[in-house]
């Protein structure tokens, strides 16, 4: 138990250091661009499939239930609100954590065990500034964009189910969806993904830096990163939802 709390403190110190280092030059613009592409563009195919499936499955599951109450016309509203407020941000974050957090953990962990991080330090390069800051920034920028994209695809997926079952045309569907979404749905939904993006990259980097010994520790770093990041995303989601409700409703 003591070890767990020590690790939590360690992770907090590691994470908070980002806010100090991010303002200190030199700014790693090239590194940031590279990691943004890795975090964002390379996650696109996965996020596309997940986003679309999210809309399709949610509509398929909900349609018969709403039909029971004669409320089928509420399907676009229900899907849009569920996706934008909750499912889109959380599922996208969890899926991206599986890909990116483990990748960062393995990459930095492998650099650690092969002394590349020591080599950076000997070259007077601060490894935190060079390796962590650009990755975390990329996470903070990319995840909200990926989530918005996943939300859009989920809505399209939902329309596909409704259209095929002959329920509604595109114009009516869009009017119904857009008018149902308010500021209080979109802002908390997208807002928390900035934090999720921060968590995904920071946790991956933290476990990478903690790797020591041989290649087995690199595998452990990758696994720990994805498990811990997923866990933290869900805990943070609970807290952020509560805060969102207090602020917006």
């Amino acid at each position, binding site marked *: 138990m003591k070890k767990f709390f020590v690790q939590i403190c360690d992770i907090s110190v590691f994470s908070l250091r980002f806010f100090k280092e991010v303002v200190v030059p030199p700014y790693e613009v090239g590194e940031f661009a590279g990691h943004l592409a890795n975090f964002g563009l390379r996650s696109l195919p996965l996020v596309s499939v997940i986003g679309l499936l999210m809309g399709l499955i949610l509509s398929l599951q909900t349609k018969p239930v709403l039909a029971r109450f004669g409320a089928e016309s509420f399907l676009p509203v229900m899907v849009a609100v569920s996706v934008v407020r909750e499912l889109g941000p959380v599922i996208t974050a969890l899926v991206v954590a599986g890909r990116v957090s483990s990748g960062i953990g393995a990459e930095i962990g492998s650099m650690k065990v092969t*002394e590349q991080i020591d080599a950076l330090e000997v070259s*007077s390069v601060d490894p935190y500034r060079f390796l962590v800051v650009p990755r975390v920034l990329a996470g903070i920028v990319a995840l909200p964009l990926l989530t918005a994209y996943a939300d859009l695809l989920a809505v399209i997926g939902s329309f596909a189910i409704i259209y095929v079952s002959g329920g509604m045309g595109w114009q009516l569907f869009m009017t119904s969806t857009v008018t149902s979404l308010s500021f209080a749905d979109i802002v908390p939904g997208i807002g928390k993904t900035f934090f999720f993006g921060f968590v995904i990259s920071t946790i991956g980097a933290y476990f990478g830096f903690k790797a020591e010994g041989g290649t087995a520790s690199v595998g452990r770093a990758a696994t720990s990163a994805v498990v811990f990041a997923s866990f933290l995303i869900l805990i943070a989601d609970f807290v952020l939802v509560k805060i969102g409700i207090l602020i917006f409703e």
Partner: protein
Amino acid sequence: MIDIIDLHKSFGGLEVLSGLNLTVGRGETFAVLGKSGTGKSVMLKCVVGLLVPDSGVVIVDSIRVDANSRKALAQIRQEIGFLFQSGALYDSMSVRENLVFNLTRHRRVDPEDANVKAEHYLTLVGLEDAIDKMPSELSGGMKKRAALARALVIEPQILLYDEPTTGLDPMTSSEIGELMKKMHQKFNITAIVVTHDILCAGIVSGRAGVLQDGILKYTGTLNDLAKLEDEAVAGFFRNPL
């Protein structure tokens, strides 16, 4: 140039260095011999500030490494080249980028000049054809050469070698040793070579010491050390090939 005074370093209750003393003069190459796990790499990492000693003093070029700020340490490191046991080439960069990285980043060398320098040092180590290869495409010996070129390209006053010939065949070890010696003479480099390869130590160093029980138990020329009857030392000189 390098002074280590009463250096102590422990890991979780295990004392690895227990009062180590060493002085290496400007332009001198000193070899540190010792069995695996005796603290040779720990000593090197204390010299470059990668590890903080529990107690003792490390002075490099009149500046205390053990008691300086991060900024001062960065300044000292500008004068130090470090060859890691594994080479530690950045595997996301090509060989050229590995060399150019440090030049353009800290020394504000123009990228074109940095490229010329990188090509020059890779030619010196015989790797001009591998300049655009990735580290994963290089053999063990080529990686060591590329890492040596990376350490040299910043034109350091001091070079620290951590097992420069480990894992290499005797022929390649000799070649790397000869290369190191040539570079030291050409640029008047002060060097500490941590090794258990007596062939390499014989080629590069004037003086050597045996690290045992956390201290440099014996120091002298390799000929002096070869005459010692201590089994731990004699083992290095038995069947060097």
